[in-house]
């Protein structure tokens, strides 16, 4: 039962937590020595509306936060997304980030790995190692994670249509390090629906893709209980042009589709809901973004409790990763991007993010250099340790403006969800190209506003200066592709090809039937079958998604 006043919240929700886990400081105070309380609320009695809509952190509907004391207990995880060139090079970048105080890993894979092509495939030419690390076999994954203690570091992997394969590889490396599966902690994006809508790395048609997703839910619920089996992402839809309202609406419409799919396979809602996590952008409009994160928590809590009748509080809690907005970065006057990402990071922190990536100033021009990534990490650290914004929970809660925006974003997003429900759900709406059209419309409107200067982008359409081009842009050595192909060919020569063939055959049989695909995929990767070979087996059974064009 939610508390009806602050004293009750302190006794029943905060104190039991404090008995288990100490806060970062014994006493929080401002620079003038004023003591900072964990939470500030309206004068008592706050009234039923406050309790129902806003309430207390750590309690339904979680508008103010999922933990009672939020970042006073533990700061968010600083998780910079990285990966490029090769497994060795990316491993070096990971270690560099961990040495500089990063607290979790986030792996970027190259496009062939994401779309299930080996590095020597015709379509992989020119793409190997460009936007992320190339992983063909377990051999690459071993090099990538060399020297990284998987029992202590949590890892997020941006991988979708080949998510089960990369998760299987991560599990295999964990086993080799002697780590119990129950100790492995991390997240796979595994959110195929937004790939059809915005990001584009799908392989198979929606139905078999949804099966792969729910197979992971089932497998992890039994074997890897601490794993976040999906990161339902608004980020890419927003980057493709969606508004904050559309970001919320389409993300939750997708989330509803995943929950329904999992329920249809016989899972109990409380059996998997705790493994669902979210991923949102943090954009420039500081207060709207804070309101968006607050609205997101309340919406999810209500969806899970009222629509899906989840009983466990953990099933109602929306936990999210945030990343600053790639589209807001400008190639012009790139130093300005540091200011933009600082505002965006602040919004994510004030909004109660569980983990955060801050983009680098040079990313409108290429992948970030080591120096610029370090500056991004330092941005997080300055906000964490010097700004004081994490010393109390949901400091903007109660602001008339922020509460109004929270209500309004929720109201408008729910209207979209109703529309999608009326169309028959996310998959049906997708079939009509509905979400794509809405997003394109918003993207085009944005572009027109910029060109008509109704929207000022500093350094781009106003305050323009002549400047020399930015030097020191990271370039991936074109020879990396050849070296990766050689490494792949070596694995193909040296592995037990009989074992590979029989593991792939076994996977094909499982895929044709209804059994869970994960155990067979684990067998394949442990025999050093390649990402491309495994994906080809599934292509032969599931078919391939036809690219639809909605303009």
């Amino acid at each position, binding site marked *: 039962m939610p508390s009806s006043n602050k004293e009750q919240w302190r006794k029943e929700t905060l104190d039991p937590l404090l008995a288990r886990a100490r806060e970062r400081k014994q006493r929080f105070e401002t620079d003038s020595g004023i003591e900072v309380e964990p939470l500030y609320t309206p004068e008592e009695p706050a009234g039923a509306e406050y309790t129902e809509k806003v309430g207390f952190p750590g309690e339904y509907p979680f508008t103010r936060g999922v933990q009672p004391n939020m970042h006073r207990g533990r700061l968010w995880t600083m998780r910079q997304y990285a990966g490029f060139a090769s497994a060795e090079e990316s491993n070096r970048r990971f270690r560099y980030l961990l040495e500089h105080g990063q607290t979790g890993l986030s792996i970027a894979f190259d496009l062939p790995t994401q779309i299930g092509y080996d590095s020597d495939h015709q379509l992989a030419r020119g793409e190997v190692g460009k936007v992320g690390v190339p992983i063909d076999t377990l051999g690459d994954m071993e090099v990538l994670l060399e020297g990284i203690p998987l029992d202590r570091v949590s890892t997020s992997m941006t991988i979708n249509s080949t998510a089960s394969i990369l998760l299987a590889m991560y599990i295999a490396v964990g086993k080799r390090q002697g780590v119990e599966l129950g100790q492995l902690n991390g997240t796979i994006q595994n959110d195929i629906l937004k790939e059809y809508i915005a990001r*584009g790395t799908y392989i198979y048609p929606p139905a078999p893709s949804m099966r792969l997703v729910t197979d992971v839910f089932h497998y992890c619920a039994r074997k890897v209980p601490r794993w976040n089996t999906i990161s339902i992402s608004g980020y890419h839809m927003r980057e493709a042009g969606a508004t904050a309202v559309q970001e919320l609406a389409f993300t939750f419409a997708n989330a509803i589709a995943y929950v329904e799919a999992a329920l249809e396979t016989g899972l109990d809602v409380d059996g998997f809901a705790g493994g669902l996590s979210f991923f949102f952008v943090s954009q420039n409009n500081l207060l709207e973004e804070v309101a968006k994160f607050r609205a997101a928590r309340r919406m999810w809590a209500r969806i899970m409790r009222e629509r899906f009748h989840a009983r466990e509080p953990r099933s109602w809690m929306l936990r999210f990763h945030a990343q600053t907005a790639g589209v807001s970065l400008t190639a012009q006057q790139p130093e300005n991007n540091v200011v933009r990402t600082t505002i965006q990071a602040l919004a994510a922190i004030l909004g109660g993010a569980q983990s955060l990536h801050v983009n680098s100033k040079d990313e409108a021009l290429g992948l970030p250099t080591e120096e610029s990534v370090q500056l991004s990490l330092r941005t997080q650290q300055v906000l964490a340790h010097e700004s004081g914004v994490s010393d109390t929970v949901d400091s903007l809660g109660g602001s008339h403006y922020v509460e109004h925006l929270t209500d309004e974003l929720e109201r408008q997003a729910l209207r979209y969800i109703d529309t999608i429900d009326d169309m028959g759900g996310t998959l049906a709406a997708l079939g009509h190209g509905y979400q794509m059209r809405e997003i394109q419309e918003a993207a085009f409107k944005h572009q027109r506003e910029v060109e008509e200067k109704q929207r000022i982008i500093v350094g781009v359409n106003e305050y323009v200066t002549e400047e020399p081009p930015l030097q020191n842009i990271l370039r991936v050595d074109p020879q990396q592709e050849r070296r990766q192909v050689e490494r792949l060919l070596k694995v193909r020569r040296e592995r037990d090809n009989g074992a590979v063939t029989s593991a792939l055959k076994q996977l094909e049989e499982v895929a044709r039937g209804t059994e869970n695909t994960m155990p067979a995929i684990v067998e394949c990767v442990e025999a050093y079958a390649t990402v491309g070979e495994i994906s080809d087996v599934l292509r032969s059974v599931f078919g391939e998604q036809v690219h639809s064009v909605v303009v």
Partner: protein
Amino acid sequence: MTSTNPIRVLVAKPGLDGHDRGAKVIARALRDAGMEVVYTGIRQTPQMIVETAFQEDVSVIGLSILSGAHMELIPQILTGLKERGMEEVMVIIGGIIPNEDQAALLEMGVAGVFGPGASTEEIGTFIKEGIAGARTSVGPPKRSGKSQEKDG
């Protein structure tokens, strides 16, 4: 062909990159500017793009690429166009293309490269002027050369 015929443009996404916000915005803006625009959708091979350009009889190809695979894919498209006798087709590129690659691509025959922050109006004007030049003179359109420094 008279100069009052609408300019036909193919907007294409070569390679595996799925980010097509820019491609779609350009397609619509050029259409609004009176051109006939065909958008290929994502994951097009160089061969597919050349074939579509041929079938659709376009005079301009706009390639959008953000994955960094441009130096592999774009030369293949230029070669393919040459093989089909379509070297007079104006090829322009939008996306994240480092300066030294821009220079190399312009050298190979690309007419213009538009980076982040380029306006759709600027691109529309570039196409119209280039095509008008081509329709009144013989040979490929001259590139303005100015777009480069602006977008670098």
